[in-house]
């Protein structure tokens, strides 16, 4: 505060110039939203119609039809297996990728970029698109689903694990290098213990996500419960579709409970 400030009783957060800039920014955003809404073709009659349609659909879905329940539960179990097997393989495969993609462990620049390229390409493609690709390669079925989920998960797990490796305390690493331990032993003793908590947390989180993703794989023919859902919708068997949706809901809740329990036990 300078002497000239004494006795002043006016204060503003922004200068007039700053205020004008802010108003201009708001105006631009409002225009962008307006333009976006104008450029997509919305048939408003269908939007206003939606509540009625929804009520109609629920009417046709109720009561859920449990005749195929045993098949549905069996396929649901298959879905769980897709998610679990894919997560297990993805976690194992992501370890070397994380090692390559972490700046402080990667052997050289080329390997760093290789690691990052694997992570980015895996993460930039959605599971469903991976699934379309692998259905074309392996044919429809569980294998395509497992490989699709695995490919998407490697990027996710590898990225988070790589970041955990970059944030470790380097001092124990220095100490073990000073004992004359080989590179691999230094990793096993100084780096692995430090990233263990992240490793488990990320693996559980990814399993949780994969459980949800594996329920929609069937829509593109890559196995799992989505296949039955697709069939039910295509044949206008809305009551069976309702059963499938309820089963998926139950599965996701179960997954939530199991992953919460694992997190408590391991972390």
């Amino acid at each position, binding site marked *: 505060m300078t002497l000239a400030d004494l006795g002043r009783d006016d204060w503003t957060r922004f200068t007039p110039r700053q205020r004008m800039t802010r108003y201009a920014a708001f105006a631009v955003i409002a225009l962008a939203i307006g333009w976006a809404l104008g450029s997509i073709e919305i048939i408003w009659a269908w939007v206003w119609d939606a509540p009625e349609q929804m009520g109609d659909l629920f009417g046709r879905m109720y009561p859920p039809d449990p005749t195929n329940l045993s098949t549905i539960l069996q396929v649901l179990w298959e879905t769980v297996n897709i998610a679990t097997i894919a997560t297990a393989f993805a976690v194992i495969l992501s370890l070397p990728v994380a090692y390559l993609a972490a700046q402080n462990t990667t052997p050289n620049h080329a390997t760093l970029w290789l690691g990052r390229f694997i992570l980015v390409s895996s993460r930039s493609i959605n599971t469903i698109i991976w699934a379309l690709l692998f259905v074309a390669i392996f044919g429809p079925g569980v294998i395509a689903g497992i490989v699709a989920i695995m490919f998407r998960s490697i990027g996710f797990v590898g990225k988070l694990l790589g970041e955990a490796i970059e944030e470790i*305390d380097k*001092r*124990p690493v*220095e*100490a*073990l*290098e*000073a*004992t*004359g*331990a*080989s590179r*691999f*032993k*230094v990793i*096993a*003793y*100084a780096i692995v*213990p*430090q990233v*263990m908590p992240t490793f488990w947390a990320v693996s559980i989180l990814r399993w949780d996500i994969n459980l949800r993703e594996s329920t929609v794989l069937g829509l593109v023919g890559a196995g799992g419960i989505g296949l039955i859902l697709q069939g039910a919708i295509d044949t206008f068997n809305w009551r069976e579709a309702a059963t499938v949706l309820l089963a998926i809901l139950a599965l996701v809740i179960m997954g939530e409970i199991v992953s919460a329990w694992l997190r408590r036990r391991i972390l």
Partner: protein
Amino acid sequence: MLKITDLVKRYGGGDPVLKDLSLEIPGESVVSIIGSSGAGKSTLLRCINKLVEPTSGSIVLNGTELTRLRGRQLREARRKIGMVFQSFNLVDRLTVMENVQSGRLGYISTWAAIMRRYPREDVRRAYELMERVGIAHYANKRADELSGGERQRVGVVRALMQKPEILLADEPTASLDPKTSEQIMGLLRDLSRELRLPVLINIHNVHEAREYTDRIVGMRYGRIIFDDLPAALDEEAMERIYSGSPAADRAGDMRQAS
């Protein structure tokens, strides 16, 4: 015996941190290196086990030239050099026994290391050393459950597990309270006598250097300017080692160079 000749370390293109430094540590004496921060004490120690790569000069430990070693040969040489750190540098999430056994990593197979199947004689030696420094009852505790003084004892035992031919200690007591740090200094001195081991200690605490070591080396801006028995470290020598500004010292260097 450790013999350092004309050692130079320069980071980038700047002023060297170590300037033609020569030092000889015969037999099993405890030597302390004192000097203000930035004098190059830590760099000197790290050049010996090549955690820092020396720019030029020679370091010979018991007949082995260390400066030119690479890869496997370097790792084998490092096994013979134990190091104790200011912040202990333990792996917090491993047990005390695993931390102690990590001093043997240069000797045991990768499989034994990963499966934690340590050779019997290593386990026996670990218990003996831990008993000697008073931490044997912590063998199964995680390292982060211990107090500072106890953690540094783990650090000392880890270094001794290597069966080193020399022990380097980089400010081993700087993170400890006064009483604990005197205990650690006493321990280093006693272990040096018992194991007939030369010990080289960087230290800020001049009182402890006088009390616990056989010889004091005073460093100032990359040079050794004092090297004598603790009794010879008088006011005038302290003045030379610690007083003055870095700028004045650099000006002195430039006068010498021109």
